[in-house]
């Protein structure tokens, strides 16, 4: 079970997740410090290690819209957060899968900050509210990359197979 540590609305852009002014920072080891940089309180909690690994951000529709910057996925992956959204923008969800950031598509969910959630197969359980919601699986092509442990590992395997 994990706690919802942040609830955000629809159309949360990559400029909110990882502001453009930090784009010169590219290394996945360095991007996490700037996650949600303009949400000063949430960013402070992350950097003070007050947010346990596996904690959940819940979002509305079109989470991660805007730029293709991969830092938006790597900065969240660095804190091992899980993102539950009604649905995601295309490039963001692809980047997340490529980097191993867990994204859960759950169009009907009901959850608030502080709720305890559990991802059980294709069901999202909200223990606080005593409700369950169906999870929409990722497309099979994306699942293959998740199963391989991300796109670097997947591509490396393909490269070796070619040799």
């Amino acid at each position, binding site marked *: 079970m994990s706690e919802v540590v942040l609830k955000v609305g629809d159309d949360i852009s990559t*400029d909110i997740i990882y502001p*453009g*002014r930090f784009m010169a920072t590219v290394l996945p080891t360095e991007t996490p410090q700037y996650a949600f940089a303009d949400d000063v309180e949430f960013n402070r909690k992350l950097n003070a290690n007050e947010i346990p690994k596996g904690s959940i951000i819940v979002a509305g529709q079109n989470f991660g819209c805007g730029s*293709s910057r*991969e830092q938006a996925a790597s900065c969240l992956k660095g804190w091992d957060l899980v993102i539950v959204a009604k649905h995601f*923008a295309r490039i963001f969800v*692809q980047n997340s899968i490529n980097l191993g950031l867990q994204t859960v598509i759950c169009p009907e969910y009901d959850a608030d900050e502080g709720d305890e959630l559990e991802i059980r197969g294709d069901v999202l359980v909200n223990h606080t509210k005593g409700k369950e919601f169906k999870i929409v699986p990722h*497309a*099979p092509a994306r699942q293959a990359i998740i199963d391989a442990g991300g796109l670097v590992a997947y591509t490396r395997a393909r490269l070796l197979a070619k040799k």
Partner: protein
Amino acid sequence: MGMTYVQKVLARACGKPSVDVGDVVEPEVHLAMSHENGAMAMNQFIEIYRDTGIDMKVWDPERIAIIYDHRIPAESSKTANNQKKLRNFVVEQKISKFHDIRGDQGGICHQILPEFGYVRPGYVVVGTDSHTTSHGALGAFAFGVGGTEMAAVWTLGRVLNVEVPGTIKVNVNGKFPAHVGPKDLILHLIGKITAEGANFRVLEYHGDTIRNMSTSGRLVICNMSVEAGATSGIVPPDKETLRYLKDEAGVKDKIETFAPDPDAHYEQTVEIDVSDMAPQIACPHAVDNVKPVGDVAGTRIDQIVIGSCTNGRLDDLEIAARILKGKKVAPGTRMIVFPASWRIYREALKRGYLNDLSEAGAVVCNPGCGACLGVHQGALGDNEVALATTNRNFKGRMGNPKAEVYLCSPDVAAASAPSGVITDPRAGGR
């Protein structure tokens, strides 16, 4: 059942007679573009090869383009170091389409690719930039990817796990009224179908208005298709496409074109008539928060920006210069102009546009992304308001989450400069 344009491109790039929407394919890539963020792809590329014992080599150095545009000249030592590393990689890997920080061949990636004839109809183009959708203006299937995905393309020459997208047909008819053009059309469309209205889909553009539109205008429309969530925006190629590639981009070899099948399946058709369209404005903080100019006219502006991969081309500068010649930017308002490429800059210089603009009080910057992404050259102060011909007005986009950005056409941007408030460019506001 026939195929849409994107289905045809993907079928060809996969060597298959046909593909269906939802199929998962691995198309061959004709062009893989990055800017400074190629540094990220480079890191992941090195990671892919680590401990494999295989000699690290990109799949085809002729099909990779790297264009420095986001932070040029470098605004910090960190950027300069990233640029330096990637520059070394370009030399090592013999990447041929490299555009460094140079006045003879530099500019914004989405301008350089068409300008140098790197994109052709039927190409599969990927770029580590969301506005890679721009290149659909030349009949390519062009879309944005992240750095890791680019590293995979550099390794294998294919995009892995592409789902064949469904297509929304957009039929545009009618003649634009004076001071209304492609930017107003695309803002109107985004407002109508919303920021996620085309998520995971392709917008395929048809109709008289599109057929009569220059490639420059088509670039505006395809550029901003991503703001409706689209994977790509595509104008099926025609006479104008061939004219642009031959006359303006200097392409000499034979260019093959094709069209979507008449019985192709479209998920939805959107009809737009531009004959009575007013200039459109996307209001803070969402690109789909679109209103006719009359609704926001009179809003005070601190900074006007004309430029970017959306509206920094010669026709945009011409419009601005024509409106501002002999006038002055209002005191208390700043105006920043950054042409989309050095070729455009030099031509605008020759034609006197840059002179007219600077005499009016505008600051003409070097071609590049400049103020568009708020890293340098035009970040906003707290509570300031910008009016820009760029493509995004998200909170924080111009470097300050406490500022506001309105998006508009070059006509509106220029017409608003002498008054310092958002102004309808049509005489008397009609």
